[in-house]
Structure formats: C-alpha cells, structure tokens
C-alpha cells in the first residue's frame, strides 16, 4: 500500500527563491507511529531544504534500515533515494559521492544502524571526511525490531522491560569528533528552533557533517526511567541556540559578546551561535570534547553546533579527483583505444 498525500496547493503558499513551495519538498505520508521523533526531523529537513533553496533533484537521500532509515520516503519526493542495507549506508554514500560530486548527499540513519552494526562504516565515512550530511535519529533503542536496547542507551537508563543499563553508551558525536568528522552537532527532534538552522548549516558544510539528533521512540522508549524520553531529554538538554544566515542576507541581530560566536562557512554563509560556556572553542577538537564531558559530568547534554573545521579537505580533495563528476566522463575520454593496447602487447613479448 502506498501513501500519497493529496496534492492540493494553497494559492498563497509562500515560495522560495526557486519558486518552489514548502510542499514541493515534502514526501509520502509517514507510516511511523504518531508522535515519533523521526517525523519531526523529517519536517525539519523539509524546512531546511526549502529555506536553503536547494533543488530537490540535486539531493541524493541515503539510508540504512530501521524506522529512521525509512524516513527518506517521507521528505523530498523529488530526489532520488537509496534505502540500502542495515548499517551500510556510508559505503553506498561514498560510492555515490565518488561518482558525482555535484549532488548534495543527505544520509539518515538510526542509533542501531550507526552505533552497532554500522559503527565501522560510520567511523570510516567520518574519517574520510566524505562530503555529506549524516543524521542519526537517536532514540536509544531499535524501534523497527520492537524496542531492544541500542548501543547509545545511556548508563542508568531503564528499558521497556524494566532492566537498567549498566554498559557505557556509544556517543556518536564524540566518536565523530575523534575520528575526523569536520562538522558535529547534537540536537533534539523537539527543538525545531535549533534543529532547522543546524541542518541548514550541516548541508552548507563541505565535508562530513554529523548530527546526532535525540528523537524519542514513543512506542518503546518514552517511559519513565528512559533517558531518551521526551520528558527526560527536555530536562537535561543544555541548548546552545543557533542562527543560520545565508550568503546574501544582511546580518542584523546582535548578541552579547563573550558567549556569541560567528562562523563563516565555506560557502560564505554564516552560523551564529550563543555558547553556554565561553571556554568552548567550537573550532578546536579538544575543547569541543571537553565541553561535552563538562556538561555530562553535571548530568546535562549539550546541544547545538559542537565542533567545526571549516576548511578541511574532503575525500575528493584527498584523492585528487577531477572537478567534473566522474559519471559525466565520456567513452572517448575514458577508453585508451587499440593503439595503446598495441604498445602494451609489445611490452609483453
């Protein structure tokens, strides 16, 4: 059964610079549970792409397997999408990106997909600084297989059966910073104010942009005792608000100095954020890791843009590939022809 939304368009619906309405960025009707955090993230992606004036067909959506990985069907129906196998989205994204460096690569994954079965591919994608945005929709459990514990489940959190977790959690944001991701943020599916500009910044970043988005599973992990419930996470998040100013827009609002920081992105756009801690230098790996730990030791979770390296070399720079997408090279350009083969044969006689 396919879910197709009614395509009625309000005549006064606002359009972006390309003349597209927000509705043009939507996808099929979601089949997730009502209230699932993942749907809010899909909505934030729609907002971000609409506001960034991205042409939908210039986006390639990629995902693994899980409730979260299903969501590319629920946004940007004008984009090609690849729902691959469990935990292996990063490799498919790598191949796709190698073939055509001119598309925007948007990966969606879950905490099971990323932090367990796919941990290796995730870490290596980050390490290679693959130019993509990678969103982990983190609910601390395996939604699609009915709520088993995932590796991001916090120590002390209680699962649906009432068992308290004693193992330490895998923090994908911290791991990403450690292994070489060049843009790392954390957010909350319930905080659209922060999430939308963060996604916009991630999409504007050149290199591997990881967003760890806490996204409660209302069906299996939203009970009292769960550290990934709406209520609990609201109580512990320490929000660094964030503004995304596109390339051409004038900068107006002013912030109290000391805790405000402005980051000029590679494409000229600007990210302005209000830090909670003036010692946190978001362009320094160690400082970012320290800030995360600092809040953690107080029982808090820091959200916002945690770390950025603006001028890094992405995978294509490292490999030295041509500016033109490899998939656009023609047979004439690629095939050496029989004359060269004659010289090969001659050398083997």
């Amino acid at each position, binding site marked *: 059964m396919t879910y197709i939304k009614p395509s009625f368009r309000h005549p006064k619906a606002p359009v972006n610079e390309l003349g597209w309405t927000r509705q043009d960025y939507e996808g099929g009707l979601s089949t997730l549970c009502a209230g699932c955090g993942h749907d809010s993230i899909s909505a934030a992606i729609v907002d971000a792409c609409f506001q960034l004036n991205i042409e939908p067909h210039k986006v390639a959506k990629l995902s693994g397997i899980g409730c979260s990985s299903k969501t*590319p069907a629920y946004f940007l129906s004008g984009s090609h999408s690849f729902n691959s*196998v469990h935990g292996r989205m990063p490799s498919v994204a790598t191949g796709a990106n190698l*073939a055509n460096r001119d598309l925007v690569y948007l990966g969606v994954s879950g905490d099971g997909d990323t932090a367990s079965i796919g941990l290796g*591919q995730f870490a290596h994608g980050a390490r290679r600084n693959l130019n993509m945005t990678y969103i982990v929709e983190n609910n601390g459990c395996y939604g699609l297989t009915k709520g088993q514990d995932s590796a991001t489940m916090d120590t002390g959190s209680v699962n649906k059966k009432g068992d308290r977790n004693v193992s330490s959690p895998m923090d994908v944001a911290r791991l990403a910073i450690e292994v070489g991701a060049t843009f790392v943020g954390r957010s909350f599916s319930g905080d659209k104010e922060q999430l939308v500009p963060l996604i916009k910044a991630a999409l504007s970043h050149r290199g591997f942009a990881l967003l760890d988005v806490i996204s409660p599973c209302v069906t299996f992990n939203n009970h009292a005792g769960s550290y990934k419930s709406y209520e609990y996470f609201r109580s512990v998040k320490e929000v660094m608000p964030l503004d995304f100013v596109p390339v051409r827009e004038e900068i107006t609002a002013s912030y109290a100095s000391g805790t405000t920081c402005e980051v000029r992105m590679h494409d000229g756009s600007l990210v302005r954020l209000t830090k909670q801690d003036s010692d946190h230098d978001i362009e320094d790996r160690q400082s970012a890791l320290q800030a995360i730990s600092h809040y953690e030791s107080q029982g808090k979770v820091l959200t916002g843009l945690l770390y950025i390296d603006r001028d890094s070399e992405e995978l294509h720079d490292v490999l030295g590939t041509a500016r033109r997408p*490899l998939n656009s*090279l023609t047979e004439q350009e690629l*095939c*050496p*022809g029989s004359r060269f083969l004659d010289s090969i044969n001659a050398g083997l006689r």
Partner: protein
Amino acid sequence: MQPKHAINDFVIKFANVNGTGSASANGMFAKAIFRMGIPVSPRNIFPSNIQGMPTWYEVRVSQDGYLGRRGGTDIMVCVNPQSMAKDVEGVEPGGYFVYDSTKPLEPRFIRDDIHYIGLPLTEICLREYTDARQRLLFKNVIYVGALAALLNIDFTILKDLVSDQFKGKERLITPNIYALELGYQHAQANFNCPLSIRLERGHKVAKHIEDFDNILMDGNTAAALGAVYAGATVAAWYPITPSTSVVDAFDKYCRRLRIDPGTGKKNYAIVQAEDELSAMGMVIGANWNGARAFTATSGPGVSLMSEFLGLAYFAEVPSVLIDVQRAGPSTGMPTRTQQSDILAAAYASHGDTKHVLLFPATPAECFSMTVEAFDLAERLQTPVIIMSDLDLGMNEWMSPPLEFDDSYRYDRGKVLDAEALDAMTERFGRYLDVDGDGIPYRTYPGAHPSKGAYFTRGTSRDEYAAYTEDGQAYVRNMDRLLKKFETAKALVPEAKIKQAEMETRNGAVFFGTTASPAYEAIEILEKEGICIDTLRIRAFPFSEEVEQFLRDHDRIFVIEQNRDGQMRRLLLNETNVSVKDRLIPILEYDGLPVTARKIAGMIRNFITLGNVTPITRRASAQEVSA
C-alpha cells in the same frame, strides 16, 4: 639409469626461500625461453608469508603448446636446503637434480636413478661479493646463467632481458650480466653442455599456438586493463591475496592514462575500503549514480559481500566483481588455487538470488570478459562476477595478444536521460517491464528537475518503485527478475565446443584454468583410443548450447578444481539434464593447479575400472606438501 632425452618438452622446478629475490631471476629464465619462441608456462607456488619460507617456481616447456601443468618434474633446481628431502624425491627417474655443491650432498639425498649437477653457488658468491645482500641476490642470477649453458638458452636474449629489467637503473646491468656469465662459464667448464634435456630454437613447436604472436602476461593485470578499457572510474577494494594485483594494476594504468592533462587531476577514484562489505557498498553506490565501478576480491571477500550482492540483484543496480579464487573454506590455503566459489558466487546472498558469472581461461579473456562484464552489468542491471583464480590471476600465461576494436561502443543499458524523460507521455515506472525482456528502465540521480526520481530499496516494491507487501506485486517482480535472467542467456559469452576425431557419446565439461590441462588430457586419452567431446563453459546462466551438449552425451566428465563438484551441481540445478549419474565428477583440490596427467588418469580409471579414484604416484606426495 640413462638420462632422459627431451627437446623443448620438460618440467623444471626451482626450490627457493621466499624473500631472497629469486622471483625476478626465475621470471627472467621463463621469459628467455618464451623469447626463444618455445611455449612455456611458469607458475609460482608460494607460501602465505613474506620471508624465510619455502617457495617453488615450476616452469613447463611444451613444444606442443600445452600450458596447463603436466605433472612430474624433470629438472629440480634446489637452492633451499629446507625442502631438499622432498625436492630430491620429486624428480622423475632419468631427471636431473641441480644443487649448491659448496657443501657436499648428504648421502640420504643420493638416488641412483637420477643425475646430479653440483654448482658451487655459495662459494662463487663468497669469492665474488663482500656484501651479504649481494651474495644472496646474485646467487639467483648465477644459477640462471648456469642453466643457460646446461639447457642451451640463447645468452643474448638473457642479456637483453637484464637490460629491459633495469631500465632506469642502468648501473645494475653490468653486474647482473657479469653474474650470468659467472654461472654460464662455470657450467661450460665443468659439464657436458647442453644436457640431454634441453631447448632448441627453431625446432618444430606449438601445435596449439598457430602463429607465435603471443604475449606473456598475468590475468590480474589483463583484468585491470579490461576495467580501464571499459571506462571504469571507481574502484573500491580491500586487500586480499590473490586479487590485490588487480587494483594495483588498475592504479598503475590509471596514473598513466587518466590524469587530466590540464589540471593534473584524476579522472578516476580508487578507495581502499575498511572491509569488503564497504567495498561492495561503494561499488553499488557509484554504479547507482551512473559511474562504472568495480571491486576485486577472493573467497572471504565474496562471503562478506553477499548481503550487498543480494541488494544489487534485487534493487537492480549494476556492479562488477572480480573474484580471484583461492583455496577455501575460511582462510583455507590463501596462496593456493581453486575453483571453489562457484556456488557461493552463483547464489550469493539469502533469498532467491542468481548472479551472472563469467569464466575466463586466458589473460586475453580476463581482458575481454572484464570489458564485457561492465556492458552486461549495465544492460542487465545486475551484478556480474568474473570468476578468475590464483593460477590465472597471479601467474604469467602465454596468451594471444589483447585486442580491442575501436569501433566498439559501450552498452550503457536502459537509462532515461532528461530528454527521454521529457519526451515520455506515460508515467515512469522504474520496475516496469516495458520491452518484455524483464529489464526495466532506470534514471540517474539528478538527471531531471521534476521527473524520473524514484526510491531504490531492498524491500519489495511495485512497478513504480513504491513499497508494497502485496504478494502479487512481489511475485510479479520476482518472476520478472527470472525473465531477466533468461534474457541474459543470449547475451553472455557462448560456450566453446570441440568435437573429438571420432563420434562419441562421451563428453567433458570444464571452465577457467582447468581448460588447458583438460584439453591436454583429452588428447592423451584420444591417443589411447578414448574419444571425448569437450565443452568449455564461459558463463552462467547456461545457454542453449550447454543444454544441447548435455543432451547429446551419455557420459559427461565434469572436471573442476574443488571438492564438491560445484559446477556439476550448478549444471544439475540449472539445466534440464535428467539423470544425475550421467555427470561424473573429476575433481582435484589440493591447491595446486590440476595436471593433465591427473585428469587423464582419473578419466581412464573411470572408463576402464568404473571409478575415479585418483591415481597415486611418487611425485604426488611431494606436490601435496608443497
């Protein structure tokens, strides 16, 4: 015992220690024979180790042009005391044992039915060189020089080869030629040169090689060139013997041919992945996005890639995989050859899957089939697996020259570009069988601003790529995939049939590197009055001529290098052959390339005694341990 007489027809084997530089000297020896115009087939038999373990190099010289292993050794050149006991044992009666006579040979190594040639290699090196490394390296060159005298190798050819080898390092040429001369002169002065086993230029050669316009090349390099010629721009891989040299060679040729002259940038990308799962994922991602991409691996990698192969099959994404097979299961014998991934590759992944396989038998076929694999993969929108093996991939084979027709154009398959999408009046259905051949149309991401986008998935979908759990839609899709596989039968390389001189109801079926020794075995048997028609399989799915051959013969020997008769099982599974007993397995799986003698022996046993118990002979004990 009288020494054996043989001109241009013998097997010589070198016993070395790996990591001592013997490989290049031995290679030069084989190449010199090749340049004399005498058919030769050299093989490395090496350990999974970098330094200090026994390694052998077997060179078969065959004026009839037989390139498979014959079996047995006529001359053993033993430079490794570690393996001497077995090496002495392996020489056939009347043969020669060449050894380092600096120290006297222990009495237990003396046999009275073979002949001994002692060369004081260590002594010469100690006298001539002061540096330890030089003493080690030149020892190899000195015995090649001695063999030139003993076997009648053209010395000027050897000198040319030295010059070729050290192009760019000219100062090494003179010392190497000097070392060759040291050996040559010692042999001339002390032995009756040439021996009764020897080479003769101009002697009638090569029944099987019509004109001697051959090249000497390994299959992996040929496959890599195939990928270059096919326009592959993305290679993703994880190192594994014996496939590593495929990507190494691809890299080498791309550095020469694919650097943009204006910018110095690369028109290709090679990524060493974190494992084979990732390598396969990258290949799928790149192909999905319209680039030609491939990977090369061996058995353990195929196991890891299986889940992804199922995805590529079901989601219909072209992919090319070169499987250079080695002895399994598990890590098995990683530096020994086998043809034991047939079933794992044909049915890789869970659920109902089948994959297109190609079976090259020569470097020329490694080249042409790799070029073809990319067309097939894109035409059929499915994985294509090239089933090479260690013997073919890593050894140098005499092969017809590589050929490429400049008028040939890539077949990029059914792809709708922006123009085609605009011209379309009907709704685009990614999985719609428009042409009735089971092959749907696809689009590349980003091709059109508003048309042709679709959702690629490994889950069930309808003709318009929408998720569905409707059983009927699922069955329609699975049946279409089967229809596509039927379509493939007419597109893959056809099998090669050779009729026996006399009419017969006996047939033999083989593929890949089993072909050379199998053809030779059939000729041995023909001389004994046993006539057998042959079929060399070159692809799966099996086309009509394979079915026909099976129908036309009552007794069919299926010759292959694995324990379980995997090709036989595939034939039983995938053709209409009715009686299982008609297919008789002829199997060799000790990790060394099967020999003509062994195949002939097993078939002869079956025909005369009704069983195929492998014949045992003296040499086999030594070979199994090698």
